[in-house]
């Protein structure tokens, strides 16, 4: 395989009339990466992956997927990518084994259907008609169809939307089995925990623009973000003069100190409290912003755009 990025996109734009669904996206995804496009509904995630899958044509910019312009993807190119669609396709009258083997037969080097069915955890249901499966089981069939061709690159478009929390976790395990095969995976999701659980890098997409690309734990400068130390000035501390705490704020008797060195601040405060005869700082907490906090801040009010971008 070539050494360049598996997916490379520059200035990718898509507009529907006056509505700009994608407003110029730059992105490179390397071989073996699990990359998540994270964003609220209507942000442009599906538009973006469907352009990369060759389902939609871009309005502007450049796109290369496995070295090929997705608008010109031929059968041989299609054989190298796997697609797990957002909608669950019903082959109601076929059994799970039959559907997986049938779709596998379109590819030059399919994985054995029985093995793929085992991997998605449908061993017990292999002889059941797809029409009789639950929603979660149908999603697993869909995942199996995306992987059965043993593609180099797999697109998963909101693989767990509509599943209950247990079903989502099970499906993550299924996806992890496949990502362990060192495939490149592009995933879209509006669940933060899903991006964090599965992806090595996350691109946050808001209103058609990619606002940040980073590993989940660094998202929004989270690693370097200021921690907050809070405690209550109660009891013997009520009248005591505070030590020098830059940026500290008071709200009633609660003191909040934003700091890059929370350990030092807590040490300083505990010495101060001890000096005033209080061995414990009342109501002490040390918090860092959660990924959720950072994400919500990034997405902002614009994130809740609901203006009918065609799905």
């Amino acid at each position, binding site marked *: 395989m070539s050494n360049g990025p598996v997916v490379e996109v520059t200035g990718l734009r898509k507009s*529907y009339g006056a509505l700009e669904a994608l407003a110029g996206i730059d992105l490179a995804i390397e071989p073996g990466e699990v990359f998540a496009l994270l964003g609220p509904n209507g942000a442009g995630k599906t538009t973006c992956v*469907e352009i990369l*899958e*060759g*389902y*939609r*044509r871009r309005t502007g910019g450049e796109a290369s997927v496995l070295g090929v312009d997705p608008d010109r993807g031929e*059968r*041989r190119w*299609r*054989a190298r990518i796997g*697609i797990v*669609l957002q*909608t*669950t*396709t*019903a*082959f109601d*009258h*076929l059994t799970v084994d*039959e559907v997986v083997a*049938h*779709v596998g*037969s*379109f*590819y*030059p*080097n*399919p*994985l*054995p259907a029985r093995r793929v069915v085992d991997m998605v955890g449908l061993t017990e249901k292999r002889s059941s*008609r797809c029409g009789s499966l639950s929603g979660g089981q149908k999603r697993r069939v869909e995942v199996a*169809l995306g992987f059965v*061709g*043993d593609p180099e690159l797999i697109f998963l478009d909101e693989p767990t939307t509509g599943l209950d929390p247990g079903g989502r976790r099970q499906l993550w395990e299924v996806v992890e089995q496949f990502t362990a*095969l060192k495939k490149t995976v592009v995933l879209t999701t509006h669940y933060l925990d899903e991006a964090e659980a599965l992806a090595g890098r996350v691109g946050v997409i808001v209103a058609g623009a990619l606002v940040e690309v980073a590993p989940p734990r660094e998202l929004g400068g989270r690693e370097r973000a200021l921690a907050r130390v809070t405690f209550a000035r109660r009891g013997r501390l009520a009248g005591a003069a505070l030590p020098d705490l830059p940026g500290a704020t008071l709200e009633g008797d609660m003191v909040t100190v934003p700091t890059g060195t929370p350990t030092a601040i807590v040490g300083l405060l505990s010495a101060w409290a001890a000096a005033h005869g209080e061995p414990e700082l009342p109501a002490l907490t040390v918090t860092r912003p959660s990924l959720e906090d950072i994400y919500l801040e990034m997405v902002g009010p614009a994130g809740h755009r609901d203006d009918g971008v*065609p799905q």
Partner: protein
Amino acid sequence: MSAAAGGTGQLPSLLQLSWGRTVVELKQFWRNPSQVFFTFLLPVLFLVIFSSVFGNEEVEGPPGEPPLNFKNYFIPGIIAAGVMSTTFANLAVSVSMEQSVGMLKRLSGTPLPREAYFIGKMGMVVAVTSIQTAIMLGVGKAFFGVELPTDAFHWAVFGWVFVLGTVSCSALGIAYTRLIPNGDAASAVVQPPYLILQFISGVFFRYAEIPGWMQAVGAVFPLKWMAQGMRYAFTPDWLGQEEYGGWDLPQVAMMLGAWSVAGFVLAVVFFRWNRGSGS
């Protein structure tokens, strides 16, 4: 890993894939009991109803010719309507359903050649239509005294009319999906042309007895020509004179052939793999 899976590295051929699609289509058909039941039973029900209503009615021939058993008049019409039902109506409905549930989108995201999808559909309807026609001929002969053609030439005409009718109506069914807004509406949008054509193409009523303008409208579409060509195989020559002013087999072939070509072109132009995705 790929090599361990036993693949050849070669893309499967169109022939292999078309065969695979045909098998899957047939499986899906047979596993849908209500579809099987109505496809094979409805035409037989028509046969029963017509036979009961018209009993032993006969069509008077010219002087010196024995009258024609009316059953022999209507069975080719019912067979032709059955072909249109399992090809045009069935394909228009099933393809638009598959369009709206995302099956076509799913298939078009795989390396399956698009032709293989259509060849699979054709393979399925050819098999189903053949069985349906064989059942009607068998039931007609065994229970209703329908007289089958006795010479190879009449059978051959029946054969090519059947093939051209199947091809033209299948292609038109696929093209017609463009007029169907969504899967739920499919049945409602497909029924009118199919029903109306049965009335004006010599299926439910004698073609010679409907008003001239209706004949003219019916004569535009393939069902009339299919019924006419099949009727040639089951009725004496004087009937063709009386009913159509002569059998005119070359024109039957020309009309069905033209509709096959036109249907194919329309299907290619109108068919959408990826409905409503803004591509």
